[in-house]
């Protein structure tokens, strides 16, 4: 049986969540190559600002700009907590000893990324970090290009899905999804969807950690299935499941999350102590 070839795409130095995913892929017995881009797939900041102004008007654009200040702080806080939960020290030791030599490219969607991938001819591409991949990159996967989305797609797509679930009181958005990537954002066919248990006292980071651990395990299982020549069945979804897209929260969203003590005082979690 030929070995499954997997190309993992990362941007910059891998953080705890990314290393956890890479280790899960390597543990699945695949021939793993890592392509590391110096820049993500996002559009330049000024272009985003113009687009925000055009789409939402000055007030919401201002709210997003103010929210970005909190977002940066929360992202740093989240990373520090995830480093401990995922045991970053242990992951760094694994990374250093893995003999994986990342192939360096400029930007995730640059032509050179597609060229490098074409040279590797991977069966499966796994997007480990970075933004939305363009079709010329996705097309380099012979079997599938996969992504872990931290939220239950298609119900919630986009960024910060678990914080959004807490802010909007939507328990059914909390979880993780593995899907085949297409041109949309978290819109591709779903291969696995799961959710951690929700309980009082959880924060969004705790939920993200547990969702990611389950998702990385599921990714390993999917890769083993591909390696055996199998193809995963589409994940059964209720017909007509509604879908929403959320980008970064604005100032109001972040303040709501902080008021809910990052989830610890969220009604959607407290209720788990009282009802099934």
């Amino acid at each position, binding site marked *: 049986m030929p070995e499954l070839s997997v190309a993992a795409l990362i941007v910059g130095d891998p953080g705890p969540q990314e290393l956890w995913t890479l280790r899960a892929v390597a543990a699945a017995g695949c021939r793993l190559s890592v392509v590391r881009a110096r820049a993500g797939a996002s559009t330049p900041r000024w272009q985003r600002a113009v687009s925000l102004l055009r789409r939402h008007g000055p007030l919401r654009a201002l709210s997003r700009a103010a929210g970005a200040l909190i977002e940066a702080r929360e992202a740093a806080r989240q990373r520090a907590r995830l480093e401990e939960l995922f045991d970053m020290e242990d992951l760094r030791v694994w990374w250093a000893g893995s003999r994986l030599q990342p192939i360096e490219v400029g930007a995730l969607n640059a032509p050179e990324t597609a060229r490098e991938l074409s040279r590797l001819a991977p069966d499966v591409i796994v997007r480990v970090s970075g933004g939305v991949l363009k079709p010329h990159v996705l097309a380099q996967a012979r079997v599938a290009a996969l992504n872990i989305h931290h939220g239950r797609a298609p119900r919630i797509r986009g960024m910060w899905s678990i914080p959004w679930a807490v802010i909007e009181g939507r328990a059914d958005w909390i979880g993780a999804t593995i899907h085949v990537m297409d041109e949309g954002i978290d819109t591709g066919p779903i291969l696995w969807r799961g959710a951690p*248990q929700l*309980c009082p006292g959880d924060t969004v980071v705790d939920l993200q950690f547990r969702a990611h651990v389950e998702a990385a395990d599921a990714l390993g299982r999917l890769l083993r299935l591909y390696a055996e020549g199998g193809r995963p069945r589409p994940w059964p979804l209720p017909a007509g499941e509604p879908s929403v897209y959320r980008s970064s929260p604005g100032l109001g969203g972040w303040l709501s999350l902080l008021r809910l003590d990052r989830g610890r005082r969220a009604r959607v979690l407290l209720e788990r*102590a009282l009802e099934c």
Partner: protein
Amino acid sequence: MLSSIGWAAMALASRLKPGGVIVNEHVLTRDQLRVHVDALGRWFDFIHPDELPARLRRRGRKPFCLLTFDDGHRSNATVVAPELERLGVPAAFYVVTGFVGTDQVLWFTLYNLLRKKLGAPPPGLGPLAVKQLPHDLRLDRIQRACARHGVTPDLSDEDVTAMTWTHVRDLQRRGFVIGAHGETHAIMTRESRQSALDNIGLSIARVARETGAPCTTFAFPNGNYTAELARHAVRCGARLVMTAEPTWVDEQFPLWRLPRVQLFDRQDRATIELKIAVGAAGRWLPSGDGTGRVYRDINRLARARARREARSGERVVTAG
């Protein structure tokens, strides 16, 4: 000073507060047990777990105290139970079913040994992280750290080793209640849903099988729970389900979500009295399950629901 404050607070609490307290202990020496029983016995009637539902409904002369001991360490059978018997105090022992009768050591025993040896928790096992991890992952990290730092438990220490099923059956024969405390000491809310349900069901079934009697009570390891898991324990046969919310218990609490106040081995009479009295307020003590004072919000929500349900019930009656 502390002694006077504790005494005054307890005197006030025992007069004003209905219900009583369920106390959660782990391992105690004979002397420590006497101190605890003496401190509690001044203010409370010790009750058998079977009496709990009735005592929640009617107010006694004194508030009640139900003593519970978690985990199933051997010293519970060889030190605590004989002394309780001598003092005439009933109690429930919650055993980790996959631990009883083995030469294994529970994860937190190893973790405490590691912290003691290193002076600080090892990486990936900080106090905020360790109780967030799924059981297998936590155990793997702890065992690797123990191997790396040469930490080995003292298997001649009865506070470390497990009781045998013969001990468990003997405790039951002597009138103590045996409850289930999980197949492993996994924190159930950190596991996948199915794994937690299986763990709970397996441990309740195993207590019943080994003792030859129905297992009617379950205590969540570390106290973390959800309604779904608690109701599953009830479906598996448990009538009383224990958490670690540090408050007194009264008739407002359903039997599938009973709070317990944790006491520790070295606490003296004054500290115990003060802690139990503060627990009566139901808002200041941090929970033993590591979620701080989140239980206040849960109980506020539960009371609001009960009021709403009562109001809607009244309206229905009036309309009828």
